[in-house]
């Protein structure tokens, strides 16, 4: 029962050696007598915390260090539920206590400011320098504040919250909704593809509508979209007609949804068709990989990180694995579920690589639940594998909640959405 394959055998087998080097097998310049293998993870969100936990769970002999500046990580999943008044910020806060105590992850409350891929070191804001044998980077997204005239980080932080990173931004948007008069108008402005959580803005419209219907029923929501279609579109529109008739209007990019300018002073946005005013404006800017990925040269011209799809090792810098929203992962959406799935694949792959073995081909999954109302849930599911065309969805699998699903089905999906949240946060941080 010996699963070990000597490097010599592997070399003989793959005469070209291309696959071997691409898999990173020969990148580990680590003598056999070396002390504990050191894995460093940057970012304690969905991808990074999953990787850190599963690295230690699957191989307790590893030293795993997680670098994350936030003491409490507020999850974007369910942050729309906070806006809908169904959850509190406290409900969606996760901490690192159990990763420390139960899994023995060395959690450092700091920010990575630089990566030296030649020396294999990470520099922290505090000035500390950490050595790694392999590095995992899961920094999430960064916002392109300069993409639209009139928009900036200070506009986002003072008057037009994106609420696309949960925390103070979510609280600001919620405050504005609470302060809005009955009969007010909410603008939601989603970006073009690709962006974090494709169904996110539409679940948000649904749950804000739920709040308004109960507390401020004369109010309206206008979605000005940079796209001509969106995730789970048919299911959302059907749900809106049923639960919030006449309350939510969606304009595609081609029919006046595309925004060219925002103006914080007059609380308005400009589209190709004219100016729209809003009492609350949730402008969600275009996005790119998290800043550290840029600083470390892990991104390509697209603004996202190219990786080897088996190990998620950067195709630019060997020894550095990138996962989560920052990565280019074929057909997979930028979701917390996908990031966590990638975190586990990366954990298993790194363990195999450190043992001088070839990683198993990846198997990846995504399920995104969206709540349209408290008892009305829909989902999109996907199972992914690697083919010669990259990471693709397995034909015949996955897909959407059926359009003709009955009330019981929709109610069960709403309950499963809650069940999913409870389990995924426990699976990542608990």
């Amino acid at each position, binding site marked *: 029962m010996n699963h070990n394959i000597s490097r010599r055998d592997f070399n003989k087998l793959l005469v070209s050696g291309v696959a071997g080097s691409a898999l990173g097998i020969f990148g580990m310049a680590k003598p056999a007598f070396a002390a504990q293998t050191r894995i460093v993870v940057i970012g304690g969100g969905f991808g990074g915390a999953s990787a850190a936990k599963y690295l230690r769970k699957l191989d307790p002999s590893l030293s795993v260090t997680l670098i994350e500046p936030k003491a409490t990580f507020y999850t974007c999943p369910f942050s729309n539920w906070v806006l809908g008044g169904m959850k509190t910020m406290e409900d969606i806060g996760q901490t690192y206590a159990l990763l420390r105590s139960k899994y023995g992850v060395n959690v450092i409350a700091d920010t990575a400011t630089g990566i030296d891929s030649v020396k294999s070191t990470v520099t922290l804001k505090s000035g500390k320098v950490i050595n790694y044998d392999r590095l995992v980077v899961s920094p999430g997204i960064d916002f392109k504040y300069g993409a639209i005239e009139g928009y900036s980080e200070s506009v986002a932080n003072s008057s037009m919250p994106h609420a696309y990173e949960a925390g103070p931004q979510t609280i600001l948007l919620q405050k504005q909704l609470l302060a809005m008069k009955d009969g007010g108008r909410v603008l939601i402005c989603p970006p073009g593809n690709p962006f974090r959580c494709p169904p996110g803005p539409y679940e948000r419209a649904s749950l804000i509508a739920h709040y308004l219907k109960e507390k401020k029923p004369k109010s309206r929501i206008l979605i000005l979209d940079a796209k001509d279609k969106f995730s789970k579109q048919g299911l959302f529109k059907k749900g809106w007609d049923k639960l919030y008739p006449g309350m939510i209007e969606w304009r595609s990019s081609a029919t006046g949804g595309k925004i060219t300018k925002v103006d914080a002073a007059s609380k308005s946005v400009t589209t190709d068709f004219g100016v729209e005013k809003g009492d609350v404006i949730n402008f969600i800017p275009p996005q790119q990989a998290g800043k550290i990925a840029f600083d470390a040269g892990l991104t390509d011209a697209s603004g996202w990180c190219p990786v080897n799809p088996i190990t998620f090792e950067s195709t630019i810098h060997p020894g550095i694995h990138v996962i989560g929203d920052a990565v280019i992962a074929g057909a997979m959406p930028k979701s917390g579920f996908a990031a966590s799935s990638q975190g586990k694949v990366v954990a298993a792959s790194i363990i195999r690589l450190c043992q001088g073995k*070839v990683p198993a081909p990846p198997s990846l999954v995504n399920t995104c639940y969206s709540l349209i109302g408290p008892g009305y849930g829909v989902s999109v599911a996907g199972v992914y594998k690697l083919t010669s065309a990259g990471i693709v969805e397995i034909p015949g699998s996955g897909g959407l909640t059926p359009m003709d699903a009955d009330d019981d089905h929709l109610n069960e999906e709403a309950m499963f959405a809650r069940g*999913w949240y409870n389990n995924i946060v426990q699976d990542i941080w608990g």
Partner: protein
Amino acid sequence: MQVTIRSLLTACLVFSVLLIAGTDASAAAKKVQKKKTAEVCVVDPRGEILALSCASCHGTDGKSVGIIPSFYGKSPEYLEAALKDFKSGTRYSTVMIRHAKGYTDEEIRLIAEYFGTVWQNNK
């Protein structure tokens, strides 16, 4: 790009074959491929990769804390039968039908084997 991915796949395939060839007859006879070392239990790497995603809805090791069914402690046979029933549609589910269709029967067997034995290592 395509060539690279193809060669990567070949590398994985070659190794899967080697892994199978390297195991003994009982393993070939579809027994659980694991061995106890000092602390770590070595499991089938393919089964592990396939199975880990399930925990995002069903909890770590299949131990669910919410309304989604827990399958911690269930046998490989039970899990394999359940997954195959979801795949064929004989067992109703809102979302499992969509997932189960993404796996071959062999992959289902590996997933069932992983979760059907992982809890025994925690004892």
